């Protein structure tokens, strides 16, 4: 429970860690979009090579990265199965009853799986190499132009920071509450859907009570430290584009071009 890697920062001192978070955000968006333009396995190959190259540079253990995939395992299997059986096609490989597996289905399912894996690992690199504060600084900075149309960029960023900060704390807390209620005889693993939903009550009520209490205390602590939104607020780390960011831009462009080339194959 406490080992959630999605959205977890892996502190290290690599080139990737030092790249401007705004650039990393934009590059990640570019990368995600690019995956949807791939129409050839060569394209996934390019993307996979690109990701491995980044992981190597970022000095993040591959194991750590793969752990993040565990969380989406269910969605992954679901998507694969759905695509496998539901894709209509000419080349029927085998069929039992109304279930038919076609060549197109296999093709589609594999593509889907590869795409999802690349998607998650790619965005994990962003969160693993960017501290949540940098990340939110980046988002805030990118959203700043939208302030004109009354988008509360700073508040959104602050909310995200706090959410990320409390993920491990609340996960730990939930683990503890579950154990405590089990010790009181709560049965969490058996019974039908309704019974199971009901058995969540002893966990959710205390968890919510505690989350509200934490929120209240945190708000007081923030106020005590002179927090008043972004009025007159400065930053310890000011975002400034450096030489390495331009090099990174070139690398990303090369990736984009390579990916586009595969479409012509």
């Amino acid at each position: 429970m406490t080992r959630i890697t999605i959205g977890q920062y892996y502190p290290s001192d690599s080139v990737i860690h030092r790249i401007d978070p705004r650039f990393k955000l934009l590059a990640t968006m570019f990368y995600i979009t690019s995956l949807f333009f791939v129409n050839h396995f060569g394209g996934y190959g390019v993307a996979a090579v690109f990701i491995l190259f980044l992981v190597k540079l970022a000095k993040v253990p591959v194991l750590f990265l793969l752990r993040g995939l565990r969380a989406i395992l269910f969605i992954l299997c679901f998507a694969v199965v759905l695509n496998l059986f539901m894709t209509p096609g000419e080349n029927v490989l085998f069929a039992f009853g109304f279930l038919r597996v076609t060549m197109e289905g296999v093709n589609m399912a594999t593509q889907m799986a590869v795409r999802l894996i690349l998607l998650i690992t790619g965005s994990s690199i962003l969160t693993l190499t960017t501290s949540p504060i940098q990340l939110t600084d980046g988002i805030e900075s990118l959203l700043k132009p939208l302030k004109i149309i009354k988008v509360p960029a700073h508040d959104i960023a602050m909310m995200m920071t706090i959410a990320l900060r409390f993920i491990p704390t609340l996960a730990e807390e939930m683990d503890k509450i579950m154990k405590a209620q089990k010790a009181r005889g709560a049965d969490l693993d058996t019974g039908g859907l309704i019974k199971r939903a009901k058995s969540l009550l002893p966990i959710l009520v205390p968890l919510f009570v505690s989350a509200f209490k934490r929120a209240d205390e945190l708000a007081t602590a923030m106020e005590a430290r002179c927090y008043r939104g972004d009025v007159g607020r400065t930053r310890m780390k000011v975002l400034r584009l450096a030489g390495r960011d331009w090099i990174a831009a070139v690398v990303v462009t090369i990736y984009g071009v390579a990916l586009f080339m595969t479409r012509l194959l």
Partner: protein
Amino acid sequence: MIKTDKIYFAYPGTGQTPDVLKEIDISIKSGEFVAILGHNGSGKSTLARHLNALLMPTQGTLWINGKDTKERENLWTIRQTVGMVFQNPDNQIIATVVEEDVAFGPENLGVSPAEIRQRVDETLATVGMESFALSAPHNLSGGQKQRVAIAGVLAMRPDCIVLDEPTAMLDPAGRREVLETVTRLNQEGITVILITHFMEEAVLAKRVIVMHDGEVVLDDTPRGVFSQVETMREYVLSVPPVTALAHKLRESGLDVAEDIMTVEEFVQDTAIQKALTTPSPSVIPGLTQVAGVSSKNDLLLRPAQDSITISTVGGIPSQGRDDREKVVTQIKNLTHTYSPGSVFEMTALNDINLSINQGEMVALIGHTGSGKSTLIQHLNGLLKPTSGQILIEGEDIAADKTKLKALRQKVGLVFQYPEHQLFEPTVYKDVAFGPTRMGLTPEEIESQTKKSLTTVGLGEEFYEKSPFELSGGEKRRAAIAGVLAMGPKILILDEPTAGLDPQGRREILAQIKKMHTELGITVILVSHSMDDAARLTDRIIVLNQGNLLYDDTPSQVFSQAETLLKIGLDIPQISRLAARLGELNPAIPSNIFTIDALADCILGVAK
């Protein structure tokens, strides 16, 4: 620097709400070190929140450096001048990286980036956390988190720091870290206001303010305050153990100074020196018995690992020994490794062998991370051993998974801060949750629920109350009743007194004692409070980094003061005192740990 003029405060609400603060008239000068004492609900936290304008007085005025806290334009100056550290270290750290959290305050103040950088480095060094600048807060210990919180306040360059029970949730080592930091800051000229429940912490201050029902009732030097033992009791507070001992001796006619606060002062006291250094008849007959020490105190402390099954030799008083011989819990070669085979691999328990007899009361002691929580979770099957065996009443608990429910009924486990698990709309229903899940008949459920509520001292008037309306101590008792209602044979309590005021601590401990003697339940008390352990149990098990270090009588364990301190534990103040007095007069055995026993002993020698 702080001055109040008859301030009153009532929380807003419908109709007439009671005054939480009444006519507070204090002034605190720059550079002072003030401790504020008071039982829960005495208004001390409310007062603290006034000092940096989180709350404003409903009547009267409060000035910080001559600035009225009610004036809106002073708000940010005041909050920068008076910084605040709160009780729960988890709920005041905003950022996910230590240095970015420290930067939060100055960022809000609009300090320039270069200056913030400098302040962050400087303040992290001041609290000794510079090597953790890039760590994630949730990986730090409690004491470290509190030091980060202090750095975060210091980075705003305050003149004064208010700490609201900063050590309540820490273990002895963490407590020491924080207090050392605070004392040093005061020496560097920062005004410190420390709100605490621990009398030994208040002794560090130069001035103590005692609050009771919203009023300041005492305001003096620690010496002046603690010498008024009876008055302090009236305010449901305690005094440091040595002070209480001195008071007791005075009552018995020994002319000990009234204002003793530390072990050294006690030893140096002229009356004590005179009483103990006059040649006395060798050893007073029956003395060892008076001191509550078993005749086996010549038994050498043996490292527990050497014996395969640890018997309870020195621990059990000879009377009633026969029915206690029955082993209820046996742990054989228990090893537990978290996340084996991954980067997070960590051995939490290493080859533990233990056996606990029917009706015993055992304390399990160790610093945070010593493996004590892991150990107790094995006893009711919440965790499974990586290797080794656990036998409850002779049965291997891993043998039959279908018996898990029965096991959890037999072995009741009360987690730390159990009040966090209350969830039903009424106290009664919450306590009945366990028995209901056990599948008992409605009559049994009712009798069990009522019985356990009575045991913890919650009468019928509490049955229909919402658990969330109760006071901290009452909540905890309700939660303990919830486990007790399942009718366990073995009750394990994880830090049952953590975060309570002296009154609450006394009540809980008394009730645990009652459960043990009246219901005959085997009790395992997990704690880092040596005082609690010494007061209640006759056997102490010490864990250190997953290894069994000691398993012996309290007196034997406490004689290992140096080792205990080294592994982040503490020994009771009275034990420390007894050891020092033993140097004066060998007739005082060093293995005493209660005030009464030591008082009797000193009086015996003095005669």
